[in-house]
């Protein structure tokens, strides 16, 4: 066992990045066997390091105790990862399943291309939140920046604050719920009537993210589906 590892009374495994390299941490987290009893981890001194706790495939709990750099919790498949600070570009990118909770703000491309799981951001997310999302649920308690949900394919994006320019540009599918204002909608994104099924999905996500808002306070946006097929009338535009 590395000197950076230390088991506490609560059976949380402490890993101090000031004492051991990131590669060692990720190797340990990525090679945990399915039935591991090492289910709770705390990472000290992350200091904005990149690729923290990426590629975990076992349902363990990981607390990153500080600010995280690029692609934190990327490719997560089943773990519950909490970042006790801000996250830089691409937090939870390509998540397959599990849960990632950012206690602070997230930079651009949060939840990019992710297939599943739940990403909760307590603060704001900047540009391109949920870009090309493919099934992930994202709940942002603050605002999202421009081009959020760009080319989103499926999943749900919940924004409790405001959305920036070009929300849902070139959207395939995905539900975009926004409580505040939307600066502008992107190409082929439109306001939708919220049905009972949509409201139930939103209500469940709000409850799981610990947000005390009601579904009727939100507006639903989705794809107008006019970009699905090539229209010969538009040939001159190319």
């Amino acid at each position: 066992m590395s000197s950076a590892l230390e088991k506490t009374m609560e059976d949380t495994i402490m890993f101090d990045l000031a004492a051991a390299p990131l590669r060692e941490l990720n190797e340990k987290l990525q090679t945990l066997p399915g039935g591991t009893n090492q289910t709770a981890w705390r990472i000290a001194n992350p200091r904005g390091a990149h690729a923290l706790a990426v590629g975990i495939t076992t349902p363990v709990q990981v607390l990153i105790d500080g600010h995280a750099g690029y692609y934190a919790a990327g490719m997560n498949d089943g773990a519950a990862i909490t970042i006790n600070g801000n996250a830089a570009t691409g937090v939870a990118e390509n998540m397959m399943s599990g849960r990632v909770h950012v206690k602070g703000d997230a930079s651009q491309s949060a939840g990019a291309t992710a297939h599943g799981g739940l990403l909760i951001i307590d603060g704001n997310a900047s540009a391109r939140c949920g870009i090309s999302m493919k099934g992930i649920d994202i709940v942002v308690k603050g605002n999202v920046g421009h081009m959020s949900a760009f080319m989103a394919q499926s999943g749900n994006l919940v924004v409790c604050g405001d959305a920036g320019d070009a929300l849902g540009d070139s959207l395939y599918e995905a539900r975009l719920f926004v409580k505040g204002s939307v600066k502008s909608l992107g190409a082929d994104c439109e306001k939708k009537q919220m049905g009972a099924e949509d409201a139930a999905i939103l209500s469940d996500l709000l409850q799981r993210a610990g947000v005390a808002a009601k579904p009727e306070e939100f507006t639903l946006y989705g794809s107008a589906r006019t970009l699905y097929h090539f229209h010969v009338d538009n040939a001159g535009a190319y």
Partner: protein
Amino acid sequence: MCGIAGLFLKNSALEPQLGALMSQMLNVLTERGPDSAGFAIYGAAAPGQVKFTLRAPAGFDMAGFAARFGASLSVHDDHAVLSLAQEKAAELRNALAKMPEIIVVSVGNRIELFKGIGLPEEVGARFGLAGMAGSHAVGHTRMATESAVTTEGAHPFSTGADQCLVHNGSLSNHNDVRRRLMREGINFATQNDTEVAAGYLSYKLREGAKLDAALTQALEDLDGFYNFVVGTETGFGVLRDPVSCKPAVMAETDDYVAFASEYRALADLPGIEAAHLFEPEPGRVYFWERAA
């Protein structure tokens, strides 16, 4: 890629540590820019004096040259800072105009500007960055994309008296803008895109624009990806292009405002745990100044 670090001190008690703090920040950003590095330090101004930072070839008698103008001299590797009486400045400029081997790196009341090829740590050590004091500093680590790795192509670029610019990104219309600026009498030493942005700001300021207005106009006229950090005699400004692909994070405390390409470069600043951290918004001009 490239890395940017900017540090503006509000608390003068930190001034002796400015160079050491900037040095730490730049060294962390080595992975973003290992080709070359540079920094502008705004130190104390002496009344009636002006500072020229010059770069000379090896073997040049800088002490003898400085003595001709009654300038005090501070040598930092291949750079030298000459401080001289303002009324002697024109005479020095005339002499320099006839000496193409001497590069004028910066001119101003407070700015001193140093840059060179190599890892940031080596460049900082060559110039003695860690021992420098001042009120604010702007630094850069370069990974070249648009032009060659040369000392001239390293950042910061001086944009006028006491002004400098660093850039992370790439401009797509720099050839066109360069041609237009050359017609207006702005000179360029390199094919570098950032030098065009610097020249653009020099031109706008020469035409009477304030720096914040010039930066706002840059949003219209410069096309491409950019995070700009500009230094002036009394402060520094930040501008990101409207798409904002290039990373930026800022920290503000009662003691300082800091800019970095990544949080890692801020992690060792004093009191960072309690700092207000934020990402500057796209297409918005930010400016911090203190009374001169």
